[in-house]
């Protein structure tokens, strides 16, 4: 069992980084949100922002929860109980938004003819894993919410950080409730899938839009007939 907590995370990291590099090099053309707004916009306009704001908040919550050690927040004078309350209410609210959003998105995907027709097998796998990760996370959180709740900051978080120093401390994961364990595993699978699915759009969040001039001028690429680099295997004979 303990090998899961050593091998899986590194495999996921490898798939994530390697896959992203591969996609960047060989499939920039496929790198898109594959928006379905052209087919249907009423539900999407509601559900997509709800889901995205929810999941982005959840993401920030994960970063804070997993990468800010217990001792830091204590040093700031934030005790275990207030932290728990923040995490319970804030986290649950964000999680609820996410679940609501993805529920409507899934409903829309299944029931709207054109949207369903444009859904690939790849999308289906992605949705399965994504929904599982979200639902398991909410479930685990709510199932252990009595008292101060399950304090993953003493087990899962230090284990995760120990991965980054290449000294995985699997003992920390031994006593973790099963729901949390499954959530972690599905979460790792989701991370591994990101570069190979439409989720790749996460990495192109266009923050630089805030800083560039409005009108972009670009020179014609002299000496290259096309607008993009030659595809591998299709390089021109010099």
């Amino acid at each position, binding site marked *: 069992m303990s090998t899961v907590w050593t091998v899986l995370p590194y495999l996921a990291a490898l798939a994530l980084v390697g896959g992203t590099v591969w996609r960047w090099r060989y499939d*920039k*053309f496929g*790198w*898109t*949100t*594959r*928006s*379905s*707004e*052209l*087919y*249907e*916009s009423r539900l*999407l*306009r*509601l559900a*997509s*922002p709800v*889901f*995205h*704001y929810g999941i982005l908040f959840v993401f920030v919550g994960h970063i804070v929860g997993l990468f800010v050690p217990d001792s830091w927040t204590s040093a700031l004078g934030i005790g275990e109980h207030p932290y728990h309350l923040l995490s319970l209410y804030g986290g649950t609210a964000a999680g609820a938004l996410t679940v609501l959003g993805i529920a409507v998105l899934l409903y829309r995907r299944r029931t709207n*003819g*054109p949207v369903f*027709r*444009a859904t690939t097998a790849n999308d289906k796998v992605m949705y399965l894993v994504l929904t599982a990760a979200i639902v398991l996370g909410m479930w685990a959180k709510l199932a252990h919410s009595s008292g101060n709740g399950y304090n993953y900051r003493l087990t899962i978080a230090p284990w995760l950080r120990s991965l980054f120093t290449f000294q995985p401390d699997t003992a920390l994961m031994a006593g973790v409730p099963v729901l949390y364990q499954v959530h972690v595993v599905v979460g790792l699978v989701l991370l591994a899938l990101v570069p190979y699915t439409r989720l790749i*759009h996460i990495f*192109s969040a*266009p*923050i*630089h*839009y*805030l800083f*560039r001039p*409005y*009108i*972009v*001028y*670009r*020179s*014609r690429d*002299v000496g290259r*007939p096309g*607008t*993009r680099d030659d595809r591998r295997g299709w390089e021109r004979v010099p």
Partner: protein
Amino acid sequence: MARNSAAPGRRVKAQIAMVMNLDKCIGCHTCSVTCKQTWTNRAGVEYVWFNNVETRPGQGYPRRWEDQRKLRGGWELNKRGRLKLTSGGRFKKLATIFANPVMPGIKDYYEPWTYDYRNLTNAPLGDDTPVARPRSLISGKPMKIEWSANWDDDLGGAPQYGECDPVVEKLHAQEARASVEEKIRFSFEQSFMFYLPRICEHCLNPSCVASCPSGAMYKRSEDGIVLVDQDRCRGWRMCVTGCPYKKVYFNHTTGKAEKCTMCYPRIEVGLPTVCSETCVGRLRYLGVVLYDQDRVLEAATTPDEQDLYEAQLGVLLDPEDPEVRRDAELAGIPYDWIEAARNSPVHALISRYRVALPLHPEYRTLPMVWYVPPLSPVVEALSETGHDGEDAGNLFGAIDSLRIPLDYLAELFTAGDTGPVRTALERLAAMRSHMRRINLGEESGAEDEDAARRVGMRPQEIEALYRLLAIAKYEERYVIPTAALGDADRLEESALPGGCSLDVEGGPGMGGSGPFGEESGPVAPASVENFHALRDRQTTDAPAGRHTAHRVNLLNWDGNGRPEGLFPKRKRASRDSEGERR
């Protein structure tokens, strides 16, 4: 670099622009079809027409694209008079990126379909003739065809749909305010109509480019063509909303934006665009215009919408002005592009004769496809009433009294200011009667002289305009410098008129040597080297190359002596030639 030009620091840019002469459009849709065959005959863009021809009055394609209050394309001025995207600034764009709040849906274009052709051959034997039912290319289901890119072609359904034309709506609202009786009517005898072919405007201030969060859309610096980098587009769809002409489309299969490319692969080799080349009416003109990049923003910010046409004219530069030509060369525009700008039919129709007008300048994108407004609705109305539709006097009177076509055209081309439209129509009217007199061999009457004077043109100018509009040949309608020549020119460096060719940036000045000896510093242009070499030669008796600081090449070699390195060494000739073959 000391330059005493009229507009210091002026950044001249070249733009490939188009003019369409609406009087000649017969609404045959050949341009649309050939463009589609070339660019959008693929899955995902079935509903896309980079070129479409719409009947006006009419809703257009996509439906009611001019309704910017709803579709929010283009630019507007904010309270402080600054330019902002109508659909919202950078923060709003990012905050609403997860679902574009105002994107036209497929139904606003039309649901593309195919027919169940297989049923024609596969249907079991029966009493009924098998039919090929329409089947949606979006949902794959059988569908009822209720709308398409040209549903209201030739005013089809106008009694029902005519009022949906945003321009008609606006005019009616104005009429209601002024309580005018006369209204645009869509009954058969009372209606007027004309065709409006539309492509991407390749705007000087493109709001599609400004809306793209990824920075995937760009305006080419050489020719102003606006393109989408397919490798950088991430499918945020903000450009679709941003373009007020709705000329960026979303490919629902690839998930990327696509738009009219101005057929750049053709333009680059000097060929006209497919839509121009195949135009049956030969109503399209292509050419270079020069403009001042630094004045674009200022012009787009003009407070009064009705001044935008003049402001845009002010951004365009006159290539006959030597100062402009010099600034253009300094800005790196190749010589043959500048020459092309001088011969540009587009420049002539827009700036010299002022008969071409921009489409909806009030969107503030400074569009670069201009239109010669149609005189035919006026001529037709005149002829129907039994008057001579080619008589200047009659025409002038009719242009004024036929308020509806004039108002309608003004809403399209000058934000409602009838002045420039009237001027353009009057010039066309004057041209008509002037040319008829010539063709019929009539004596020049005082009336005609009057007509010419009234429109502010000399008879020769009128004849030149006629030549351009009526009989211009292929090479006169399409004056397109090639990109390859442009590149070659850039490599060559030409002498700047009115400037010194030695004044190149970081050039060798008079010394000809970089900070670390002769081979250091940037490469000197050949003409600079030659200049120094020739001067050295005139002031020395020694064979070339011996005492001079410059390489000797065949161009500046005076035949005196055998300069180092100019010829291969004599003795080991065979080895050297072998080396050369490598």
